């Protein structure tokens, strides 16, 4: 059953023009941070969203929750059009849709105690107050691996991993159905990262949660996601079941991304694709396929028109002009 459906969602930002530029009529330059993205997340599923910094994956996560107001497109959550909701209804809907942020230092108010931070959603949604709220908060805190005796401490008294647990408790306390996990483990050390991932998976099973898990770390996504969407410059270039996409990537960008991941374990001669150059500026994205400037397989057509998304396997979709020839960058090295 589909829990979340995103149709043609875009988020554009206008770059500021100086007075002089406005007077001479310089056209507005627009950053298309998220451009016409469609995806679905089934109930109980983990959809992994991968891409490099600046590709728009965090903006997409926030636009889905309307933390950033989308420019166009539609988000449907459990049958309700979230994009059309007025403020009070949106607030009620937010009880069911939560977010965990990347930076466990910046996302907690340093002047509030843990009880206040974690208990705030209870007050906002009128779920509980006073002693009852404190009891619920304590219970959630213990569930995420902290102690009830730490309720009256401030964020600076905790380590990075513990702060991330506080952030998780805050997302969990209103008993949501869906959580956007925006790089929740990227700022943590390896051993702490594993603790948090294990916790998120336990909570998912226990409370029947659905995650949109945003990460640039393909190993993490490969470990915990059911399906994966690959994003490049504001657009989704490939989606599919995680095993299918990781073992049989069809888009040249996915292929090069996967081959760049350094792996622990016995060295095997894996094919290497080294991309040339950096991510183009989103202010001046390339015409046609946005990846053509770095793509080793690009042909003239790639610079002319954007490719259509096409099915390449069960539930596996890619947007590339060169899918027909079954070309792959991943020829094994000799």
């Amino acid at each position, binding site marked *: 059953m589909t829990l979340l459906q995103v149709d043609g969602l875009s988020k554009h930002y206008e770059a500021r023009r100086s007075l002089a530029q406005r007077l001479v009529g310089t056209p507005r330059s627009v950053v298309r941070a998220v451009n016409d993205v469609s995806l679905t997340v089934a109930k109980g599923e983990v959809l992994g969203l991968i891409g*490099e910094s600046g590709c728009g994956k965090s903006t997409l996560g926030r636009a889905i929750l309307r933390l950033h107001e989308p420019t166009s497109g539609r988000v449907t959550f459990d049958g309700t059009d979230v994009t059309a909701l007025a403020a009070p209804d949106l607030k009620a809907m937010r009880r069911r849709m939560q977010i965990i942020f990347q930076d466990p230092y910046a996302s907690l108010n340093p002047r509030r105690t843990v009880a206040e931070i974690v208990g705030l959603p209870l007050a906002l949604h009128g779920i509980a107050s006073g002693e009852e709220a404190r009891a619920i908060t304590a219970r959630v805190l213990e569930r995420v691996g902290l102690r009830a005796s730490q309720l009256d401490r401030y964020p600076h008294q905790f380590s990075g991993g513990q702060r991330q647990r506080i952030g998780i408790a805050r997302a969990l306390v209103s008993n949501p159905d869906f959580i956007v996990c925006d790089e929740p483990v990227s700022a943590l050390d390896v*051993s702490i990262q*594993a603790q948090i991932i294990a916790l998120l998976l336990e909570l998912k099973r226990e409370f029947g949660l659905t995650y949109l898990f945003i990460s*640039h770390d393909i190993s993490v996504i490969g470990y915990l996601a059911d399906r994966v969407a690959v994003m490049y410059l504001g657009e989704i270039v490939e989606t599919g079941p995680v*095993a299918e996409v990781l073992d049989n990537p069809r888009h040249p960008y996915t292929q090069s*991304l996967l081959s760049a991941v*350094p792996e622990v374990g*016995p060295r095997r001669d894996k094919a290497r694709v*080294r991309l040339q150059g950096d991510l183009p500026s989103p202010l001046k994205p390339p015409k046609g396929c946005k990846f053509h400037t770095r793509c080793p397989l690009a042909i003239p057509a790639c610079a002319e028109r954007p490719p259509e998304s096409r099915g390449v396997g069960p539930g596996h979709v890619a947007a590339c002009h060169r899918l027909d020839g079954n070309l792959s960058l991943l020829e094994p090295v000799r």
Partner: protein
Amino acid sequence: MTVLLEVSNLHTEFHARAGLVRAVDGVSLKVSRGECLGVVGESGSGKSVTFSSVMGLVRSPGQVTQGAIFFDGRNLRDLSREEMRAIRGRDIAMTMQDALTALNPALTVGEQLAEVLEAHDETLPTGRTARRTAIRDRSVEMLGLVGIPSPEARLRQYPHEFSGGMRQRIMIAIALACRPKLLIADEPTTALDVTIQAQVLELISDIRARLGMAVVLITHDLGVVAEHCDRVMVMYAGQVVEEGPTDQVIGAPCHPYTRGLLASIPRPALRGQPLTPIMGQVPDLVGLPPQCRFHSRCPLAQPQCLVEVPMRDAGPGRRSRCLRLEEMA
């Protein structure tokens, strides 16, 4: 291979308000010429401080209190500040994790490259114009070497005009300008995306092979070590806990911490299986008792572990700081 850098029993301490922090506690290591040593550890393990100590860059309230640092036959701790300054940048170069703060925002990239060459390169001609041309040519060559397109034009630009990957390359270009014998790369790719990370690491390996330079790669990413380093040294709470050839340490770790780290890395092959994270967190370095520092998080800990544990041989070229290392095999 001859030894280029040999550090023995290094101690670096910081006088913090909370008390004395032994950030580096008896670290010994060797780097041979042309070799790539990986240094792995989590934040606070002392990996960066160890190599800042080697570079003579530890400032008050920190202090190197004990140990010897032999580089190319000389004990760096006996050198004066001027002598040390001559070695830094010319014989040993270090790149920092955050290129944006390590580069000077007020100087162009060309000026920053010229600074290093002016200070250290004795082969430059003395005539003013000839010298300027020589520095320019070398700068262009270095930027070309690290793969920056149209280097002549880029020399006149400031650090903020470059992307993250490009800045990291510029720092590497500056570090390599005087063809050092040893490059210390402190988390060179942590701030970078994987495709850019692969480009930068390949670049370092490539230049290492071409210039015959030794590299110390400080990182928290075991995958990076597995793919780029000959030997690896694992640090925990200010001490080396395990060292040896990379494939052996990663294939068959003989310290519970290394084993725990490897088991903590999520990867597609482990889907559906529970991760086995290391429980708890790194101990506070203030006032640590002389005992195994990992015992509070160690699944193999026993009452006997509450003593000072020395590094012990664990096979050819391998050492581990664990009382129970025989049982780990």
